[in-house]
């Protein structure tokens, strides 16, 4: 190895290396320390051992509620978005005129995010004057109270999330376009029908992309914040108090930085376990092409 090149390597790499220690590694360790303290930012952190974790697991029903809400959201929203993402990508992969315009239309909602979208959906879901209940009424269905009904508030946000399926869709589309054409040709020659081709060729070839979106979707699902903060404030009856919102409230409203740090560590362990489980099971359902690709 060239010495000069190695020095240059570290010089070019140094911005991230410094950032890693300042904003990642250091904070992760400090966060672990804080999770064993009581800290309100006014007085120095006071060591209290495992008390935060003990309260969290045994005396804080809202922690369990927020965890339940978040898992509910993840369990429904992630598979639903994968399903629609793949479905729309299959549609977008058709060679018909004007397909580019359609792609743009389906992709557009996923690039508008943030507060404006939360406000828009709050209005769309308005029980009396919103577009969605008006549409349901036209079909003869009486729409629910959506965000104001504790049984419908989470489904409302899951529905809203489908609107931004375009981000995943475009990734699946890239995956679909990477499937070698001769596979389909060979299958057709062998007499395999369209359905069989989908299950035997398209889906296996797409499985690495689905795997990627599954992991990212789960990690993203644990971050749900803006919708709850803007649209429901966590209500009604804490039915949309998601983990990230509860953690934010603990840290920045109640100034319980130690307690919130303990929550952050629990969150990290949960997502780590999820990711590991998915990686473990992926060996049985994710298809990787032979070594010539790597």
């Amino acid at each position, binding site marked *: 190895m060239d010495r000069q090149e190695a020095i240059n390597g570290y010089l070019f790499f140094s911005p991230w290396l410094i950032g890693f220690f300042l904003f990642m590694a250091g904070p992760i360790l400090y966060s672990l320390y804080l999770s064993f303290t009581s800290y309100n930012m006014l007085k120095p952190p006071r060591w209290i051992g495992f008390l935060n974790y003990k309260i969290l697991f045994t005396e804080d029903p809202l922690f369990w509620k927020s965890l339940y809400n978040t898992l509910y959201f993840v369990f429904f929203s992630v598979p639903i978005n994968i399903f629609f993402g793949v479905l729309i990508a299959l549609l977008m992969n058709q060679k018909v005129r004007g397909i580019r315009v359609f792609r743009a239309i389906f992709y557009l909602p996923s690039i508008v995010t943030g507060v404006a979208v939360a*406000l828009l959906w709050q209005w769309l879901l308005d029980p009396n004057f919103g577009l969605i209940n008006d549409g349901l009424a036209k079909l003869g269905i009486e729409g629910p109270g959506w965000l104001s009904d504790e049984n419908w508030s989470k489904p409302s946000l899951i529905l809203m999330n489908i609107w931004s399926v375009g981000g995943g869709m475009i990734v699946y589309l890239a995956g679909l376009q990477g499937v070698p054409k001769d596979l389909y040709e060979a299958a057709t020659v062998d007499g395999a029908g369209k359905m069989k081709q989908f299950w035997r060729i398209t889906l296996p070839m797409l499985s690495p992309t689905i795997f990627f979106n599954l992991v990212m979707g789960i990690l993203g699902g644990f971050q749900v914040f803006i919708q709850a903060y803007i649209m429901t404030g966590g209500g009604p009856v804490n039915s949309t108090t998601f983990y*990230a919102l509860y953690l934010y409230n603990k840290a920045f409203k109640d100034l319980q930085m130690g307690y919130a740090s303990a929550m952050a560590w629990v969150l990290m362990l949960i997502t780590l376990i999820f990711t590991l489980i998915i990686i473990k099971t992926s060996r049985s359902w994710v298809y990787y092409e032979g070594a010539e690709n790597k």
Partner: protein
Amino acid sequence: MNTYSSVKTSLFIHRIMVYSLLIAGSVLFILPLLWMLSTSLKGDVGLFDLPPKWVPEPFQWDNYVKAVQSFPFLRYTYNTLFLTFVSMFGTVLSSSLVAYAFAKLRWPGRNVWFVILLATMMLPPQVTMIPVFVLFKKLNWIDTYLPLTVPYFFGGAFYIFLLRQFFMTIPKELSEAAKIDGCKEIMIYAKIFLPLSKPALATLAIFTFMGTWNDFLGPLIYLNDPDKFTLALGLRSFQMQYGTRWNVMMAASIIVMLPTIVLFLSCQKYFIEGITLTGIKG
């Protein structure tokens, strides 16, 4: 009927089905935005018409004037633009430097660090959020733009990964020839790699733009002085003040959304490029 014409008929039916699905889906996806536009032009009374009307009578363009006047709109636009451009500059500069180290230079520990880089993308931001807040508080950076800009100068893992993939496609011969001519590494990076990577850098800049423009949690945590607010925070305080004036609120939301929509429609190519670049298609 011979087989040729039956194939033709089934192709035709297939095409009809594809188009009906495409059109039905597009209508569903575009309706919320049209509804937003329609609401933003309604009068205070027409807003609560039952059943709702799609075409407001008359068009209340006035709502847009009200929206812009009811919060320091220009000030917030300027603040948001400032934050966005500084973050874009920081991200592109630092991420490209680091990506170059990963793609074109050999140094001990490179592969290990690359794995660590990828692993950090899996880290829930909450784990670092509180200590980093404490750090910035100790530095007296709260209520300044420093916490919202400085971190961007240390590179983003996803962007580094994206650019690394792109740099790897640039032939080695180019940099080797330059090296023989006595070019310094930094010159090769600046004079050969950056110009050749314009599309990838544009993708990066656009992704950063989208992220910062829409960022809510960052400004929410770090900014207290209303004069320093961004558009996202402005919309939030607008909501707190005018709760149910949906027409004016939708007008304000459209104004805030518009730059991202225009950017998307004019740079679609780069959005798609970013996806194919990452090579996650398997």
